[in-house]
């Protein structure tokens, strides 16, 4: 006799529950070893090309990976002794913060200034002491506005905004430093407004918030699911059992992940929510169990019958979901792989529990309770069932109209999809009114920009950068880049050379240019290095003067901004061919590559999953034709959603690309359930098994039955899912709102598509589908 896990579980429920608890506890022992990694940067391994190259650039030019910008705004202008005093005090305090690379903080009191006063050349900090008299303030104003290195960098054109640039040591947490800076500025009274911006703030805040949200959101979603379930089944014990099903699989998979030594990354922190979503599939078991129990009144028999009826679709939906996620394991990006493996494992665990733990728990429910609850489960009485029957009736009754509407919608969706803009902007992951967004907007409006990219200029050999021709080429490139609206400011070694040339020549504006000889350039740079901070020069040229670094300050964190810069560099190179090599680098470049890689990896995974799921469908139905039909609601849902994304102007970013995978795993479930049960129903009916092609009436009748009974399970699944994910729409981070809205609409849509379109298609294509009998 074949071993049946369900029968064994029903036979030895206590043993099965005990075993489940022991295994769960075993996985739980791993939890104390949990490590977290909130840095989205680690989506790409440290060995990836872009990180290796960026590290090399950072080393070559003694740069800092991360920089925070503190903007200080005074509507009356910052150049007054009071505000300047604050700037000086704040700078002083910032220098004391742990994790701040104090030697290279740039602010009025620390930034290097090159001036000439009555023949005296001065290379020194701009504001070593706070000016007190009007005359001293005028002097400072003059120095600020006549030095092109300062304009738009530490002083805005209108004189109302200044910034303190705070580089961070490697490994420092941007959010912690930002919090310390907030405390410091809080102590200052007055009209000044303070804005803290920069990639590390956004990134580390987002990483931390994401974890926090997962910790808050997952339990809330779980609670909502529990309540909705209770409202559906009116039995607390069973509702809790279903919840436990999800929780246990989450513990197993997270325990496995931790046990294998992986840190929990922002991507894998989403796994519990995904698993909770996948777990809702077990609602089909409950749904059917209630109907069966009503019919047979024997609990054990009902359980076994239920599992026989839904076993196959449940197994295949699990397989499809697991396969959809497992495909991610073949991607390039490690956190994506881990995530895929994690959810695939959890899905398999869920299914094992569906066939063991859940039936075992069923046996503990008092029959009286089930009876009371099951009373409502009559498809002729239930209003929900009647409604679903009506929907399916529309599809089956007017298949041509239904399909025509579908085609029109589909075409519209495809037009929408062509309008999709691929872009990513981490700062926009925060709400418009959030501190981070406001700070970023303010600083970008007044100054050169908070996002930094580099263009590394590589010459053919030592001292190549000192060549006047090279210098002029770089200068030309800077002017070319500054024409882009996204570029706020650029600066390079050329700016220093020009500045010194002018200052040495009695501040004559005619000498605000690259000098004629290599010797002069070499001597100017040497002179500059004699008094300036070492980093001033190191940040813009390498040691042998064979490479130069052009700083490009961008006014937006859009990944596309850096793309524009790269394109502009290419145009310039084509228009003026020269022996220099030009390569992009920096955090803006990293963001571009990172977003691009993760996004396209997900898209690639999504497409592969589409194929794999289709193959599973073919196996499930043992028919290519039925696989095609069952595929339609899934494709149609995805098409419609992305169509809306395209029309709404919402950018196709990383969170959306991650969601695509989930949509696939979930949406296909509904059609598997629907078609499997429909075919079962047909086969069970006495007339169905005899005739080669079932009669239309029989098909229609079976479709309506399917919509009313397993359809209710589908609808319950969708509602449950949507209800719990709707919570996400109240999250403070926009990707969560996106995820929430996306999942709610996806679930509702795919449930509707399944119930309306499958009947329409089956009726319309019945000749083709049933040719050769019922498979």
């Amino acid at each position: 006799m074949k071993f049946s896990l369900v029968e064994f579980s029903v036979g030895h429920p206590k043993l099965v529950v005990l075993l489940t608890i022991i295994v769960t506890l075993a996985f739980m022992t791993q939890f104390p070893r949990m490590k977290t990694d909130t840095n989205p940067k680690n989506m790409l391994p440290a060995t990836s090309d872009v990180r290796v190259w960026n590290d090399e650039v950072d080393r070559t030019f003694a740069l800092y990976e991360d920089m925070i910008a503190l903007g200080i705004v005074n509507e009356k202008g910052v150049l007054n002794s009071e505000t300047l005093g604050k700037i000086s005090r704040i700078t002083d305090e910032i220098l004391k913060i742990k994790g701040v690379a104090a030697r290279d903080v740039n602010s009025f009191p620390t930034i290097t200034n090159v001036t000439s006063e009555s023949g005296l050349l001065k290379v020194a900090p701009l504001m070593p002491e706070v000016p007190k008299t009007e005359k001293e303030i005028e002097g400072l104003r003059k120095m600020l506005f006549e030095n092109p290195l300062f304009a738009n960098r530490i002083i805005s054109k209108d004189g109302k905004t200044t910034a303190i640039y705070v580089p961070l040591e490697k490994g420092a947490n941007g959010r912690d430093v930002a919090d310390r800076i907030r405390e410091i500025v809080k102590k200052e009274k007055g009209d000044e407004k303070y804005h803290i911006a920069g990639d590390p703030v956004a990134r580390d805040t987002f990483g931390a918030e994401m974890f926090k949200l997962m910790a808050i959101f997952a339990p809330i979603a779980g609670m909502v699911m529990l309540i909705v379930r209770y409202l559906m089944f009116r039995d607390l014990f069973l509702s809790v059992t279903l919840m436990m099903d999800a929780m246990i699989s989450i513990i197993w998979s997270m325990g496995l992940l931790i046990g294998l030594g992986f840190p929990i990354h922002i991507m894998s922190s989403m796994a519990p929510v995904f698993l909770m979503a996948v777990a809702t599939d077990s609602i089909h078991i409950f749904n059917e169990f209630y109907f069966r129990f009503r019919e047979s009144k024997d609990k054990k028999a009902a359980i076994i019958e239920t599992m026989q009826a839904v076993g196959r679709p449940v197994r295949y939906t699990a397989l499809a979901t697991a396969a959809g996620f497992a495909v991610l394991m073949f991607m390039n990006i490690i956190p994506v792989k881990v995530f895929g493996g994690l959810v695939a494992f959890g899905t398999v665990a869920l299914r094992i529990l569906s066939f063991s733990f859940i039936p075992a728990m069923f046996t503990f429910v008092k029959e009286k309770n089930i009876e009371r609850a099951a009373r409502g489960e009559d498809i002729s009485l239930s209003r929900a069932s009647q409604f679903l029957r009506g929907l399916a009736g529309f599809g089956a009754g007017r298949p041509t109209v239904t399909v025509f509407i579908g085609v029109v919608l589909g075409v519209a969706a495809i037009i929408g999809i062509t309008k999709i803009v691929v872009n990513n902007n981490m700062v926009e992951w925060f709400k418009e009114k959030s501190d981070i967004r406001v700070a970023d907007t303010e600083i970008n409006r007044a100054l050169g920009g908070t996002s930094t990219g580099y263009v590394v200029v590589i010459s053919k050999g030592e001292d190549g950068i000192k060549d006047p021709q090279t210098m002029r080429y770089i200068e030309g490139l800077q002017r070319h880049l500054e024409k882009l609206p996204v570029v706020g400011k650029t600066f390079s070694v050329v700016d220093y050379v020009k500045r010194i040339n002018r200052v040495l020549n009695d501040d004559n504006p005619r000498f605000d240019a690259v000098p004629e000889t290599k010797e002069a350039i070499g001597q100017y740079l040497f002179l500059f290095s004699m008094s300036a901070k070492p980093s001033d020069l190191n940040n813009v040229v390498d040691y042998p003067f064979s490479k130069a670094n052009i700083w490009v300050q961008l006014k937006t964190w859009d990944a596309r901004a850096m793309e524009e810069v790269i394109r502009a560099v290419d145009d310039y190179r084509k228009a003026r061919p020269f022996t220099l090599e030009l390569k992009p680098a920096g955090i803006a470049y990293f963001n571009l590559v990172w977003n691009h890689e993760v996004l396209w990896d997900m898209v690639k995974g999504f497409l592969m999953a589409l194929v794999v799921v289709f193959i599973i469908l073919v196996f499930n139905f043992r028919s290519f034709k039925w696989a095609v039909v069952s595929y339609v609601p899934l494709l149609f849902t995805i098409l419609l959603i992305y169509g809306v994304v395209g029309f709404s102007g919402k950018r196709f970013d990383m969170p959306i690309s991650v969601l695509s995978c989930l949509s696939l795993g979930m949406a296909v479930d509904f059609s598997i359930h629907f078609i499997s049960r429909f075919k079962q129903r047909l086969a069970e009916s006495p007339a169905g098994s005899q005739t080669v092609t079932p009669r239309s009436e029989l098909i229609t009748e079976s479709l309506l039955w399917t919509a009313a009974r397993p359809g209710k399970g589908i609808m319950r699944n969708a509602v449950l899912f949507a209800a719990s994910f709707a919570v996400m729409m109240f999250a403070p981070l926009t990707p969560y709102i996106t995820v929430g809205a996306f999942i709610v609409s996806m679930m509702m849509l795919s449930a509707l598509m399944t119930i309306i379109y499958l009947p329409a298609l089956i009726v319309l294509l019945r000749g083709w589908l049933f040719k050769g009998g019922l498979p």
Partner: protein
Amino acid sequence: MMVLRLRRAGWVALGASLAVLALARPVAAQPTADEIMTKAHLAMYYAGEDMRARVTMRLVSRDGGERIRELTMSRRDLKEGGEQRYFIYFHRPPDVRDMTFLVWKYPGRDDDRWLYIPALKLVRRIAASDKRSSFAGSDFSYEDVSGREPEEDTHKLLREEKAGERSAYVVESVPKESGSVDFARKLSWIDKATWLPLKEEYYDRRGELARVFTGEELKEIQGFWTVTKRIMKNVQTGHWSEAVLADLRYNQKLSADLFSERYLRAPPAELTR
């Protein structure tokens, strides 16, 4: 003028002999921290009446990139422990060859500095408000090259211990005016035998170690003990600089006149050797 010079020389001689006396005194009583630091200052920066050396500096970045500076440095003391003049002639890097640099150092106030830029054939006076800024792009500051007056800090003798083979006093120095310097605290290991600093640790205002000086090689030249190889490492950036002093000569009778603006354009061989 002549008289003045004689008088000055006399002072220098007196100062020097006092210093020698101080050095020769048997170490009976424990010296105070202030005494130790004053002696160290004199031994390191005022040895002889004048000095000339060929200095090769290697500036090494975190990932091993190197910049070389080669220069002839001459020094003339006007007053022991007081006013000094430095003349620097650059040999390398090649594009700065013939560049010259003159510093008049005064205790208690800003230096005067002049620089000759060969490409412009121009002498420029350079402001020198910050003695803590980098010397020629290295990790050494101007004060590391020409000395920081002991009076600017309060000193405390912490302990005596071995530094390598040598026994040393460990003195803690805290700047009196904390705002004007980049360090909050300095520990010095002063060699008991030569009074030269064997090691110095500079701590920043957060109390973290920022820079470390080490005297790598000590030689006796014409009776004066000298640190002929020095390393300054910025432990926070990983950048470090090494200065090696070769062809060192004391008491060459370098005239104070040579240390003036007019010799910047065409320095005499005594200052470029």
